[in-house]
């Protein structure tokens, strides 16, 4: 990292570290210092890093973002929340990275379930976060992860005791309203043995201009727990969004993830799953829709550490304009992780000659009794399909829109919670080329 940039971050850190939540908690102070040192050491990733070779983050490094203000601004009358709230969900709202209690709507929580903002938990019971916020044994995955740990200001804390169940989905809504802000949010989800929870993590913007959202979501699913995590990335057109979802699964646990990436000038979501107990299973679905000069990435890493685990990945991309996407899917099967079953699919649809999709499956297999498969395609709309529809009276623009919808909707259809599926269908239609008048 260039010395001027480093100096700027040092000055920022010195200035805000006493103002960040939990500043007086000694172990957290220490963790922040360690994380900041790690950030200075690692710096921002460059094209020389294998995991970042298609993605330049120079625009983020060069921008001078201001850190999140210490408290959420008053925003009782914010129009965006009502339209974003999913029917039937419990809602936790963050405005510019800070919890906005007056906009949240959690309701009474059942026994064994704790949901609150990270900042509030650090006030009340900081020790419950010690394991989650301490420096990870393996170090930070990237400079962004270290930066997040050093500056983390807020996020959601979700805890389910063994056997607890949150029937209504929990919607974590992150709204950006101010330009030039950098927010470092952390969500911590701990699902005890046999518990069940469904979380929607949504990032959207209210005309916020250019800003930087750096978010980490850590999920721990105990033995037999069932966790769903659905991420909707609808950041503003000039926004930078760097996100990681890290899920660690115990035996027999299941993790269903979906990641819908529609917004941002430069956006990346990394999803890392550790299948750390026998017979754990995960399904990772994703859909990227890009246009203009957007650059949007998905990096997945599934670690089959124990036997008889299964993983499924189904990622699709629709690219228009001069946009660019990367899908990098790594599957590791450890020695001894026998009878692992892994299948990865990535399909991309290019709607323009200038769009570019890079797809990179990586399988690393150290066990011999395994079933692993992968397939990747990059293609265009099929002229035979377009002609077939036109020969039935559907006009050319509507035929194209219908085919794009059908392609993308294959991912949306896999969502089991209907209000979320309906929302996604609507978002999808709104993004179709030439509108989609013919699609009612």
């Amino acid at each position, binding site marked *: 990292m260039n010395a001027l940039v480093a100096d700027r971050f040092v000055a920022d850190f010195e200035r805000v570290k006493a103002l960040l939540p939990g500043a007086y908690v000694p172990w957290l102070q220490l963790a922040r210092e360690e994380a900041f040192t790690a950030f200075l050491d690692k710096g921002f990733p460059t094209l020389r890093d294998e995991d970042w070779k298609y993605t330049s983050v120079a625009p983020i490094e060069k921008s001078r973002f201001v850190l999140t203000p210490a408290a959420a601004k008053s925003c009782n009358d914010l129009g965006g929340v009502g339209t974003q709230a999913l029917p039937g969900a419990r809602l936790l709202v963050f405005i510019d990275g800070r919890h906005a209690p007056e906009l949240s709507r959690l309701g009474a929580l059942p026994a064994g379930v704790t949901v609150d903002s990270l900042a509030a938990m650090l006030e009340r019971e900081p020790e419950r976060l010690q394991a989650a916020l301490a420096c990870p044994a393996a170090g930070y995955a990237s400079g962004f992860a270290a930066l997040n740990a050093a500056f983390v200001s807020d996020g959601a804390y979700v805890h389910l005791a063994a056997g607890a169940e949150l029937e209504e989905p929990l919607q974590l809504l992150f709204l950006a309203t101010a330009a030039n802000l950098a927010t470092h949010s952390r969500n911590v989800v701990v699902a005890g043995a046999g518990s069940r929870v469904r979380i929607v993590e949504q990032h959207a913007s209210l005309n916020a201009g250019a800003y930087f959202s750096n978010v980490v979501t850590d999920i721990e699913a105990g033995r037999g727990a069932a966790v769903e995590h659905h991420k909707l990335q609808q950041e503003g057109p000039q926004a930078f969004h760097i996100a990681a979802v890290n899920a660690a699964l115990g035996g027999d646990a299941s993790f269903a993830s979906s990641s819908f990436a529609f917004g941002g000038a430069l956006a990346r979501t990394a999803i890392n799953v550790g299948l750390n107990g026998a017979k754990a299973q995960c399904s990772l679905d994703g859909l990227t829709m890009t246009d203009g000069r957007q650059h949007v990435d998905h990096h997945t890493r599934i670690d089959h550490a124990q036997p008889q685990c299964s993983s499924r990945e189904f990622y699709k991309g629709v690219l228009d304009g001069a946009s660019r996407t990367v899908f990098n899917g790594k599957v590791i099967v450890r020695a001894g992780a026998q009878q692992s079953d892994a299948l990865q699919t990535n399909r991309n649809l290019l709607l323009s000659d200038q769009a570019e999709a890079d797809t990179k499956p990586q399988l690393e297999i150290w066990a011999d009794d395994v079933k692993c498969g992968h397939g990747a395609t990059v293609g265009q709309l099929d002229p035979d399909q377009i*002609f077939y529809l036109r*020969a*039935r009276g559907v006009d050319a623009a509507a035929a194209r829109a219908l*085919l794009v919808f059908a392609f993308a909707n294959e991912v949306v259809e896999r969502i089991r919670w209907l209000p979320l599926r309906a929302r996604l269908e609507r978002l999808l239609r709104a993004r179709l080329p030439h509108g989609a008048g013919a699609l009612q």
Partner: protein
Amino acid sequence: MLEIINLHASIDDQPILRGIDLAVNAGEVHAVMGPNGSGKSTLAQVLAGRDSYTVTAGEVRYCGRNLLELSPEERAREGIFLAFQYPVEIPGVANIYLLKAAINARRKHRGEAELDAMDFLALVKDKLKFMGMDEALLYRHVNQGFSGGEKKRNEILQMALLEPRLAILDETDSGLDIDALKVVAAGVEAMRSPARAIILVTHYQRLLDYVVPDRVHVLSQGRIVRSGGPELALELERRGYGWIDAGEAERVGAAP
């Protein structure tokens, strides 16, 4: 209804149709036969507006209009229906959705009110029954995972729903077992009407046992080389296409 005059068409600069003349009137059923590569399917696709073919000469009049000026969707809305030789699979699009979009595109074009879901379902169920098709096929993705017979029936179902003025069936009989052939033939026969013209493009005479054409045309090397009544199809069945090609070669060879 349809008048084709000296039609030439090519694909990738390779001439396929080399001067087709054909007139089809309302109420008539015409069979267009010929060996593989004679241009039968090209003729069907050109009439439906497939843009991978280039019309290099000639004209096509349809109900008094220049057909070649119309886009494929305009042709469909004006009452032309092509039953595809290889019906296209469209993953992600429910069959019922396509049927409804097709019907409503046509109705809208005619200034009629679009059918609502109830009316549409009543109409489609009636036709399904006639075609001996399972209702479940409505909710499956268009032609995806359909057997060969189901795909062809699905084409005839669409034709029955759309009630075209000019139906062109491109080798709808190929790949069908005898029972499926009978169902498809009955579907076509039921479409016969004084207001409608039907063109059956076929390699074999088999379908014509069930749908007896008014006229039979034999295509060879992009031209119609013989035209006659239903007896011409029987003659082809008996003698094969060899004599047509040989005759054509003689005729071409003898030309100055």
